């Protein structure tokens, strides 16, 4: 397993528990230090395509099971998510989403303007309403990745921290110090960096900013996302920001988010941050008075069809891919691990695997 982000960690645990002898090579000295440390940790169901819904809802059920055993530092919080509608047009979108989820037995409730204000008193007055998804939850991703890595190790896995892989072949991986580690199968789970090891895949980094405040317990109660998020998130060219805030177990508030293409520099950018915070303040005016203690950036691994790459690397027999999770890799990590293990072990899967196969036409450069 190359990479101990949430995806590599989940895959390593799943494969180790299925009886394989697993080793993880992670360039950092710890698990979950890549996009996983930068992400928000909203464990979401999404309705933007049937394949995205299948993966996110299956993964959410796996998270619910795992939550029973997660350590406290993984900060799992079943707070639910609220999609916020600013106007009548967005309210119609709430109704559409509601029917979508209702037809698929996902618990959902429509809130009118007054109920929304009661549910989240710090939202600005006069918003049109919202959609409450009670089964959504949040976690602290790097600690969840750390836990999954420990579980892989407890099942006989070897964890090699501080080992950067420079080359992957059918027979194993080469490390930066030129050591060669023999492997029967190799999984590339290096997030947005996967293109360095598999240059043919169509995965692009999409930069995001986040900010975190001091502790204000009760200020925000649910994961909140503006409905405009989807319009913004799916534009594959323009830079965008969206109101997206999350309550942490500590009382801190995570404030997001931004999306930028074509930027490889991880530096936090003032103009992007101020747009992002202005958007947050537009929805929650009192955020302006809160003290922000840290800002950072991370890179999502974006694919042309917004679906991850899970399965055999086209043209290879013993190399697998688990990357391209864009803004949903925390959510979909557990389902990714389960589908990947099914493919490797020749098992049937709970949901069809074909939409995520790396061999699908859009996933690799022509």
């Amino acid at each position, binding site marked *: 397993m190359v990479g101990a982000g949430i995806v590599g960690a989940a895959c390593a645990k799943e494969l180790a528990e299925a009886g394989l002898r697993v080793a993880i090579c992670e360039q950092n000295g710890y698990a979950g230090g890549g996009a996983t440390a930068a992400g928000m940790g909203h464990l979401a169901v999404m309705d933007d395509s049937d394949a995205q819904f299948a993966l996110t809802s299956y993964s959410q059920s796996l998270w619910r099971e795992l939550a029973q055993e997660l350590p406290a530092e993984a900060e799992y919080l079943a707070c639910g998510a609220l999609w916020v509608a600013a106007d009548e047009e967005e309210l119609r979108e709430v109704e559409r989403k509601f029917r979508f989820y209702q037809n698929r037995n996902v618990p959902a409730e429509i809130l009118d303007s007054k109920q929304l204000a009661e549910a989240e008193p710090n939202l600005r007055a006069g918003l049109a309403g919202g959609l409450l998804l009670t089964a959504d939850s949040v976690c602290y991703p790097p600690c969840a990745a750390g836990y999954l890595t420990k579980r892989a190790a407890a099942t006989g896995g070897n964890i090699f921290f501080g080992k950067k892989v420079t080359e992957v072949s059918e027979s194993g991986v080469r490390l930066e110090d030129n050591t060669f580690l023999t492997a029967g199968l190799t999984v590339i789970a290096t997030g947005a960096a996967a293109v360095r090891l598999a240059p043919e895949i169509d995965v692009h980094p999409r930069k995001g900013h986040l900010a975190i405040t*001091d*502790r*204000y317990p009760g200020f925000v109660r649910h994961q909140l996302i503006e409905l405009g998020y989807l319009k913004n998130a799916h534009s594959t060219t323009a830079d965008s920001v969206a109101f997206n805030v999350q309550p942490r177990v500590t009382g801190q508030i995570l404030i997001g988010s931004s999306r930028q293409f074509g930027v490889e520099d991880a530096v936090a950018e003032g103009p992007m941050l101020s747009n992002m915070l202005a958007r947050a303040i537009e929805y929650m005016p009192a955020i302006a*008075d809160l003290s922000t203690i840290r800002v950072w950036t991370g890179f999502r691994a974006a694919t042309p069809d917004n679906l991850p790459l899970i399965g055999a690397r086209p043209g290879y027999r013993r190399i697998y891919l688990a990357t391209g999770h864009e803004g949903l890799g925390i959510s979909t990590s557990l389902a990714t691990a389960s589908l990947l293990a099914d493919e490797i072990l020749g098992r049937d899967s709970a949901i069809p695997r074909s939409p995520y196969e790396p061999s699908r036409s859009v996933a690799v450069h022509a």
Partner: protein
Amino acid sequence: MPENLTIEVNGCELPAKAGMSVAAALFQAGEFRFRISASGQPRAALCGMGICFECRVTIDGQANCRSCQILVRDGMVIRTS
């Protein structure tokens, strides 16, 4: 002579002087526990220059204000934890 002011700290009225930081007023009032840290330890102002965040208190209802960076005002209501 700086103007005499009255501030309220945890429900008690205390004298202070204009131009003083809230942190200085708290120390003068004998308050050495500004807040309780996440791990349950008592904390008070340390750097006095806005960097360490140890001096956070609630001022006029607003939580997490750095008391070393804010000057007292007459009638200010301060809460330590």
